[in-house]
């Protein structure tokens, strides 16, 4: 059973953007293909075309030399093309079995036997009669995969499948995909994660701005070469020069800070003590859910601690709200860009206006000073290379990377003395991560201080002057960056003791 899929000169043009520009690709069964590209490179458009969700403006698709007419998702299904979308296409309130039976002509009894056979064969453990909303993300994805397998797919397309999975679930998924590939299913794997391409795929096509810029075998590639192809320029290696001007000028001093939450799902903070000097970056590492959220909220003033003190330039600020703290030139970039840092349904300039300082004069007698806000927003967009200059654009249309640049820009344009950021590069592609890291290094060099709470150890080791680990709401001893290595971090994060 040899399957050949050919994409020939496919173009899709949206107003103001060429999503796919003359894309031609050849795929053959027995191999796992990666389609690599940054957010907005056109990968998702291409797979939506392959699955019949949207129609191309130009170009053809051939399956085993037969021209396919894919005008609806049904056509893709009938031609044995299976697709697992990044955002699951499941009905949350229906049971697993109902989800699987909805587009199937077989009678329920036969279908149940068929599904049970598939579950057994690939060792998937899913209860067919529970509603989808009770399942974990990994299980939901398995349901999607089973939905494809029921139809004996020749082609299986996975769109950024690991973005919602835990590490264990990712490993399981890779094993399954390799198994499918051995059984002759052609697998197309869409991702922006370089490591996954190298560990899973045989061939890789890189897309950039709607075009295929390179097709190669993964054995001939390495992380840096793929990254450069994806970005289209050589990534500047970020080099943190150890801040030598740690003059000891104290910016922030946190002492004997405790936080007891009434919410059983929150972590209590126990006796937090640290100081932060001018021009320094303090990294706080830890496995997510060990109190990072609570620490960020207390430092930013979203919640107040039960006791203890936070002193900013020797002024007590622990009872101030975020707005008042901002007036002292502190800036905050929360983890959740969409719901905490920005309001997605508001326009860019409106989101900028949310950060309203006494000195910024955005409002006059309670009315919007639109000109002023828009000028200010334009300055942010250009200074922080957000890829639009339209301040009237709704923020929800920005990609994650651009939204993060906007948020950082909004926080930094007032030249704050201290930036507290929480997972600033979470979910971003390599280019955006690189930009944000550069920005953070730059503000350190300007003598501003940073508290970087992150679950990404590479990032912490790259950017921090000193590092502490948070575990079950307690901070470890603060170590200088030179004395820390990944192994030591890992040990501390897991609660192991190091002296």
């Amino acid at each position: 059973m040899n399957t050949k899929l050919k994409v020939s000169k496919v173009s899709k043009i949206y107003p103001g953007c060429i999503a796919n520009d003359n894309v031609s690709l050849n795929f053959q069964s027995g191999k796992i293909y990666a389609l690599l590209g940054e957010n907005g490179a056109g990968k998702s458009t291409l797979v939506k075309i392959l699955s019949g969700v949207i129609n191309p403006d130009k170009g053809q698709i051939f399956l085993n030399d037969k021209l396919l007419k894919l005008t609806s998702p049904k056509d893709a299904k009938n031609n044995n093309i299976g697709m697992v979308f990044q955002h699951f296409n499941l009905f949350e309130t229906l049971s697993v079995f109902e989800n699987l039976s909805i587009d199937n002509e077989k009678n329920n009894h036969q279908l149940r036997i068929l599904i049970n056979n598939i579950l057994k064969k690939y060792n998937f453990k899913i209860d067919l009669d529970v509603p989808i909303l009770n399942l974990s993300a990994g299980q939901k994805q398995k349901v999607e995969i089973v939905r494809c397998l029921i139809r004996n797919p020749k082609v299986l397309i996975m769109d950024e499948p690991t973005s919602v999975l835990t590490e264990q679930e990712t490993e399981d998924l890779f094993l399954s995909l390799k198994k499918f590939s051995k059984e002759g299913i052609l697998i197309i794997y869409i991702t922006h994660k370089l490591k996954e391409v190298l560990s899973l795929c045989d061939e890789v096509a890189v897309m950039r701005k709607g075009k295929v810029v390179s097709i190669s075998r993964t054995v001939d590639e390495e992380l840096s070469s793929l990254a450069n192809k994806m970005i289209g320029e050589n990534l500047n290696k970020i080099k943190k020069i150890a801040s030598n001007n740690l003059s000891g000028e104290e910016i922030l001093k946190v002492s004997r800070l405790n936080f007891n939450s009434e919410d059983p799902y929150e972590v209590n903070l126990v006796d937090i003590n640290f100081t932060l000097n001018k021009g320094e970056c303090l990294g706080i590492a830890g496995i997510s859910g060990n109190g990072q959220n609570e620490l960020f909220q207390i430092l930013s003033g979203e919640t107040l601690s039960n006791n203890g003190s936070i002193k900013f330039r020797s002024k007590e600020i622990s009872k101030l709200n975020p707005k008042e703290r901002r007036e002292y030139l502190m800036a905050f970039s929360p983890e959740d860009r969409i719901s905490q840092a920005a309001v997605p349904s508001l326009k860019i300039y409106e989101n900028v206006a949310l950060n309203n300082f006494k000195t910024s004069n955005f409002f006059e007698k309670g009315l919007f000073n639109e000109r002023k806000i828009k000028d200010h927003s334009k300055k942010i967009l250009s200074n922080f290379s957000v890829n639009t200059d339209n301040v009237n654009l709704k923020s929800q249309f920005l990609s994650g990377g651009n939204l993060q640049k906007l948020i950082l820009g909004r926080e930094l344009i007032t030249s704050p003395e201290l930036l507290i950021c929480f997972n600033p590069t979470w979910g971003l592609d390599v280019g955006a991560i690189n930009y944000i890291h550069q920005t953070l290094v730059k503000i350190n060099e300007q003598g501003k201080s940073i508290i970087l709470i992150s679950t990404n150890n590479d990032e912490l080791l790259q950017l921090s002057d000193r590092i502490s680990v948070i575990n079950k709401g307690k901070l470890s001893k603060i170590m200088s960056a030179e004395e820390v290595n990944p192994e030591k971090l890992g040990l501390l994060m897991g609660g192991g003791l190091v002296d």
Partner: protein
Amino acid sequence: MNIDINFLGILIGAIMASSVPLILAASGELITERSGVLNLGVEGMMIIGAISGFALMVITDNLFLAIIGSMLSGLLLSFIFGFLTQSLLTNHVATGLALTIFGIGLSAMIGKDFVGIPGKQFPLLFVNLKEAIPFFGPIFFGHSIVFYFAFLLPFGTNYFLKKTKIGLIVRAVGDSPLSAANQGINVLLVRYCCILYGGAMCGLGGAYLSLIYTPQWIENMTAGRGWIALALVVFATWSPLKVLVGAIIFGGITILQLHMQAMGIRIPVQFLSALPYIMTIVVLVIISRDSRKIKLNTPTSLGQIFYKEK
């Protein structure tokens, strides 16, 4: 004692009859909402059903045609709603409210010439059994065909939603129209059908009032029943059988409080009049308090505008 029991039977029969329009309209609206469409035009569609049924009865002298006509007029009105919300993507809430206002106004205009015309006796089934069996007779027999249809409808609706493929598709569309479209389901077609079905049932509910329950045309004769039907659907958490329970409680307390008023019990009339609304909501909230079930029954996409990517 015998007389008392028979009176009780007649009372229960009357309660059931009074809940028929609510059951019909609420069952129809339930299907519409299960597909993710919130049509607040129930009152408007009912009143249009009432006047067109009555007018057709007067003009053609044919009750069958009158019933069919009332359903068609409800369906026509809901088609306007469907076209606006599904094809032109207008807001469900605003469009539904407009539909109600439109229906009330239009029915008053059509109805001008029909005020004061006496209705016609609607054929009742099993009348001899009603007399013959004490207590149960007046409850179960001597009603119109629409009555029996209404009481079977919630069971049918329940079966349709839970056991049939099309019912599954309706629920899927209400859960996530985008996923449904990506599965190759024609979301617009499903939603249109559900809207039209809801409209027809509301029309029938209205016609029951003007042709069977109080056979005459009175302006604004639905008197807020459409809104009650809407509330029933929500408080019954989109479960057809709970809608039935709610409708009977509402009808029951409405009739009981009328009797209490007639008996001169010293409770303020305003309180008695408000009682059916309060009790129905209290009971439905109590029987639907399983939050897991609520989550599973609530159409997630309710009231959201859906459009397909091109």
